[in-house]
């Protein structure tokens, strides 16, 4: 059994990550505390930086030098990293950023929240870019998706983020440590010194006529490819389901319990869990919502993923939201009761927050 933060750190090491740069903030301190001891054992480097701003830029430098590297933080620290993330996306540099979220805005609180969904999936920094965002919902996935995040990040030369929270970070569950052979792709673009080749530049500044537009279309094409090829989603839908529940991360665990309870009462329900939040499984949800006329999104925020859900829905499908934005966790009983209420009301209940 491993704690979520430790599983994530072990996943990073299994993926060949040997560099960590970070600044303390609750509730993610288990990651740097663990890696400060673990990385030197495998020939790696751990630096406690002077700020999250420095952390993300150390990551930028390590990535430009061709290494797999990471940083981790929580809400306020991730806000400080947005500049660096924008530069990394613009410079096409891979790297992993872990956000073990807090409640915001501001200093907020340290309990579980999913209020950083917009920040993670919409960029958060300036410019026309996206992060690759993966949202684990178990300790096993804290391990597996960290490995996956490094893979996708290198594949698309774009920073990736693990979006998790204190529940996933603190929880212990059994983990199978699959040790995949580390395949760090050849990085001919890395800055290793201009030996036997022309000098190379890693940059995000393009001042020539049309250069920037061309660059942004190039980035866009990568994001389109991501959408087509690497969208991850968990689907568990009954035949003739009457309602579809959509949830991600720790919150989806409560929904899974509620789905189990609903089924034991004879209800026909469906469950969809986006594993990649960007790329978002728009097609899956569009398809399923054509068959199931009612969707209930459950989130620990005021409905941030609900935006993406509503963008995906088949016309005519009714969308409802169960939201807990203040550190409260929707209980399986609460979810079940909303579900039953919606089903009972049928078409009489309008769309919206319930």
């Amino acid at each position, binding site marked *: 059994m491993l704690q979520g933060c430790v599983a994530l750190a072990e996943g990073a090491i299994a993926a060949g990550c040997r*560099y960590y*740069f970070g600044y303390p903030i609750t509730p993610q301190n288990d990651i740097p505390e663990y890696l400060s001891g673990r990385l030197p054992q495998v020939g790696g*480097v751990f*630096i406690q*930086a*002077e*700020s999250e*701003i*420095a*952390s993300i*830029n*150390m*990551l*930028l*430098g*390590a*990535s*430009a*030098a*061709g*290494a797999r*590297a990471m940083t981790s933080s929580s809400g306020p620290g991730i806000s400080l990293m947005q*500049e*660096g993330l924008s*530069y990394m996306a613009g*410079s096409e540099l891979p790297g992993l950023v872990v956000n073990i979220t807090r409640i915001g805005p501001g200093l907020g609180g340290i309990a579980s929240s999913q209020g950083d969904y917009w920040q993670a999936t919409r960029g958060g920094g300036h410019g026309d870019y996206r992060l690759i965002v993966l949202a684990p919902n178990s300790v096993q996935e804290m391990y597996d998706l960290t490995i996956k995040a490094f893979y996708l990040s290198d594949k698309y030369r774009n920073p990736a983020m693990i979006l998790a929270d204190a529940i996933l970070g603190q929880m212990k569950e059994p983990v199978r440590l699959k040790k995949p052979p580390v395949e760090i792709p050849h990085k001919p673009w890395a*800055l*290793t*010194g*201009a*030996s*036997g080749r022309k*000098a*190379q*530049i*890693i*940059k*995000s*500044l393009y001042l020539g006529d049309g250069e920037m537009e061309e660059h942004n279309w190039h980035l866009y094409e990568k994001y389109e490819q991501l959408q087509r090829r690497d969208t991850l989603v968990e689907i568990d839908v009954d035949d003739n389901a009457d309602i579809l529940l959509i949830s991600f991360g720790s919150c989806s665990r409560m929904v899974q319990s509620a789905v189990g309870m609903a089924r034991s009462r004879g209800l026909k329900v469906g469950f969809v869990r986006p594993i990649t939040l960007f790329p978002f499984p728009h097609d899956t949800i569009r398809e399923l919502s054509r068959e199931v006329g009612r969707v209930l999104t459950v989130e620990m925020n005021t409905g941030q993923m609900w935006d993406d859900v509503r963008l995906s829905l088949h016309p005519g499908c009714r969308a409802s939201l169960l939201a807990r934005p203040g550190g409260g966790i929707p209980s399986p009983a609460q979810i079940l009761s909303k579900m039953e209420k919606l089903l009972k009301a049928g078409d009489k209940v309008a769309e919206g927050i319930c």
Partner: protein
Amino acid sequence: MQKVFARPQSMLETTSHFCPGCHHGTVHRLLCEAIDHYGIRENTVGVPGVGCGVFLYDYIDIDVCEAPHGRAPAVATGMKRVAPENFIFTYQGDGDLGAIGFSEVVHTANRGENITVIFVNNSVYGMTGGQMAPTTLLGQRTTTSPRGRDLRNDGYPLRMTEMLAALEGVVFAARVSLHTAAHVKKARKAVMKAFHTQLEGTGFSFIEFISACPTNWNLSSQESVNRIEKEIIPYYKTGIFKEKDGGG
């Protein structure tokens, strides 16, 4: 016929886009001379910050990684930790290093990162149009201090070299100027020492170049040189402020 003055090998053959009287070109040349001298072009990576200095890659034939404004020392830290065998230097202006990137340079120096920081101090934000910098002298008029830098409103001009020299992690710290041939000779020596420091692996090395920005000073090249001699050097004294054993 004997060739007595040539372009350093690592310097790209191109026309300078810098303004007349600007000293960036001279700094580039000194860096290239040192790169050639130590034969390290093939394992050198430069990390320019944001400002006129970002165009480093148009002039020096080495690998270059752009850094966000002020963050070059953090980027360089990441690079150096991944590849300690590579020669890594940052190239930063006074706004980049002395204002927005103050924290990064101080902590990088304090960790004793084995990198070299090239600090070009022309006492204004050059690229953005001549605004007041942390190094702007008292009374100096800029686009954001139209009545001259006012002590009560803006505080004192920052002496970075003296501050950094006080840190244990710093092995070599010098301030040089480029406004006369004699000063350029001293600057060349300082650059060689700073490079040597990093190549020996002894720690953080820092050089501040007093540099002219005639465009934003609203002065001619010659007037700019005169200003450096009469107004700047008296406040920003040149010399080696730190040279620990093992450095140079």
